[in-house]
């Protein structure tokens, strides 16, 4: 059993894993009780398991624990809290932008990454940035509104 020292939400967290290829997702959820990231496909296709890795949205089902060492990882829990939400989270709450909410982790993480590199994206840029994040409930319109709101803009 090897131990991988990972920087997660501002703390170095040791992760024990027998398999260096074990995806980070399972360590977050089962070992660190960080269940914000969700298992959706395990194929990197849906985005439900996204985390920020050095500010970029990465699918934690495709990132192994060994690859995670030396990187700065932020999960949905590290982004903000109910008391002190990140602006993207606050905008999602204001717009009530979740139904079942299973995809919400991926939406918030990817939106936060987008706004980190582009403070005032156009609606089309938001759509493109979220193009590989799937939602089944049909909450897309509210999610777009929330991201526009988080960037200080109103949906056209």
């Amino acid at each position, binding site marked *: 059993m090897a131990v991988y020292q990972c920087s997660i939400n501002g703390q170095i967290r040791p992760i024990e894993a027998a*398999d260096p290829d074990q995806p980070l997702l399972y360590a977050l959820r089962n070992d660190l009780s960080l269940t914000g990231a969700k298992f959706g496909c395990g*194929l990197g296709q849906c985005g439900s398991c996204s985390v920020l890795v050095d500010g970029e949205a990465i699918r934690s089902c495709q990132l192994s624990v060994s690859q995670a060492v030396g990187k700065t990882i932020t999960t949905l829990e590290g982004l903000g809290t109910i008391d002190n*939400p990140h602006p993207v989270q606050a905008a999602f709450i204001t717009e009530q932008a979740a139904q079942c*909410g299973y995809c919400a982790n991926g939406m918030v993480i990817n939106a936060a990454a987008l706004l980190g590199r582009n403070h005032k994206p156009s609606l089309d840029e938001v759509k493109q940035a979220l193009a590989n994040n799937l939602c089944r409930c*049909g909450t897309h319109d509210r999610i777009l509104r929330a991201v526009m709101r988080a960037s200080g803009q109103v949906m056209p």
Partner: protein
Amino acid sequence: MTDSNLPHLNRRDLLRAGSALIVAFSSSASQAQQRNTPQLKAGKTLKTDEVDGFIALAPDGTATIYCGKVDLGTGLRIAIPQMAAEELGLPVEDITLIEGDTALTPDQGPTAGSSGIMRGGVQIRQAAATAREALIGMAAQQWGKPRAELTVSDGYVIADGTQDRLAFSALLNGKPFALKIDEKAPLKNPADYSLVGKPLPRPDIAAKVTGQHPYMHDVTIDGMLHARVIRPHAVGASIAAIDENTIKALPDVTIVRIKNFLAVVSRNEWTAIRAAKELKVTWSNPAGLVGHDKVKGWMVAAAGDPAQSAGKEVLNQKGDSAKTLTESKQVLSASYYWPLQSHASMGPSCGIADVRADGVTIWSASQATHRLRGICARILERPLDQVRVIYRDGSGCYGTNGHDDVCADAALISKALGKPVRVQWSREDELGWDPKGPPQLLAMRGAVNGEGKLSAWETEMWLPKATASLPNIPMLGPEAAGIAQPQGLSTGLISQNAHPPYAHPHLSVKVNWLKDSPLRPSNIRAPGKIANSFAVESFIDELAASAQRDPLEFRLEGLTDPRGLAVCRKVAELMAWQARPSPAKSGSLGRGFSYVHYKFNETYVAIGMEVEIKRRTGAITVKRIVCAHDCGLIINPDATRQQVEGNILQTLSRTLFEETQFDQAKVTSVDWQSYPLLTFPDVPELVIALLDQPHLPPLGAGEAACAAVPAALANAVYDACGARLRNVPFTPDRLKVALARGYA
């Protein structure tokens, strides 16, 4: 996080987050037995006809509402407390809602058929009204005043024009109501509503977007093992050989085999996933399925085969359509097909079972926890009162997806090992093995008379026949394990909305019932109505076009229901609809319209759509969707609006992209590339008008709008380019074929 820690969203947290009420998750004791049969407060019942089934008032003045229906991401968690608080005379934040827990909530039936508010909420509202009347009666007696002088507010009975007030808790004095629900207990006048009709925020959203919401998938139980079920390489195949050596290198893996049910179990989830992937299993006897591209032909052939036909039935007959059609100068005919589709939940199903000698506890995201309780009792051969199902939010299910199956899997494995077991399906499991929406084939014939009016209409359908009084669909795990269970099909009510809601002097609606479906079917959102409305509302447009009539005018002249007229006119107004026949002249831009009166007795929906098509690529771009929606009394307009948005976008996805593909062995569309969904770049502008009817009963908003989407899209495509799409999904290839020959 263990389950006993689940209620970690305290009331203060939620209030701080801007939410208006408490969400409670029934906490469970650490001991299995207590967990299985929690101590109920004195007088608390599980009966649907008693106030104490649904409502408990605490000494501190707060109330707990026990709701047999569950919030599937639909907003019931705020809407039900709004209804209860309004009638009871309590602040909504003083209400705690417990959902679906079979040990605590009355069985109000599955949260299906858009019935959460319409039936579940209405039942609880009546219980609240009965409770309020009882409290007023108690105060009247205590004060010796006439009831008419008393009102309720904020948890008190108040004597009009005085300072006198009595707290509900003081009146009850710790006792239960011990009352049957009075169906005649008066309901509050809607003019006096202070909670119903308000867009109160949902209490779960802040937690959902900060990673604090306790989903089914996040629940852990002390000593819990992770399991993966290995499904056969062909439907119904049996195990020929298992090579255990292939996973010898993996530590801590147990193989559970019960006949052809096979699972791998480990304390570590990733190890279980690897074991499921790496264990070499040889399967025998492939399935002999129809294949997705041959379903239409199979349906027609099966109807003519006595071994496969479940009979013909006339559902509706008026006048003499056959004679009228024979005598008509021009008769149109067309057939429409809706394919098998997956519920395609974002999160594959997950369940936990703890099967012990002294009781069974199941954690589930099922839309039907009470039904699931019976399923688990039967497959485990336990009396019903030994089984408790605790509800936790899952990924949206939109019908019977894999939620029930996964719990049956977990129950079998937990029973075999005597330990709590969590089963998480894979993406391939969910798209491959969730029960599917059944296929539907419809053939229409119709004619327009010399005055340009609809003169005759015939619908003939080919549909799998649901098995009467089937308690549940056969579960995959028990089936493989050789456990006897009731056999049959479950589809939801799929033959409704099969004729136009417009004047039709001569009408015939027939169905060819089939004994089987190509893959195990279940109810999927707006069961059947989505396909039938697609066919009916497309064919109405075809008839209008043949008579060179404006499709909206053609509808409106045959529509008399004022609520139906209102939603149609609202959409026309929002689209600035100009009367003209289809197709338009532009060749690439089009508009379409569709109207549905759901089940002919529920919600009214009209949808208009604006599209652009590309002739070269066959691509369809939906630019704008306009919807007018009348579901009677609106409890929470923002949650209702969100349901309508979800109905529209999900159905746009189903219409444009979705078909479960399968070969002779099994489903082959098992990831998001082979089973694509609508993505953000496909999302049009949405304009939604909710027409409130404060003095009418509340109806469902969970599925009606779905039914109006596909035809509005097909009609808009036809208007854009003169090509008629009659087969779902509307792929670019199909549009190119339709452009070449006029239809596809």
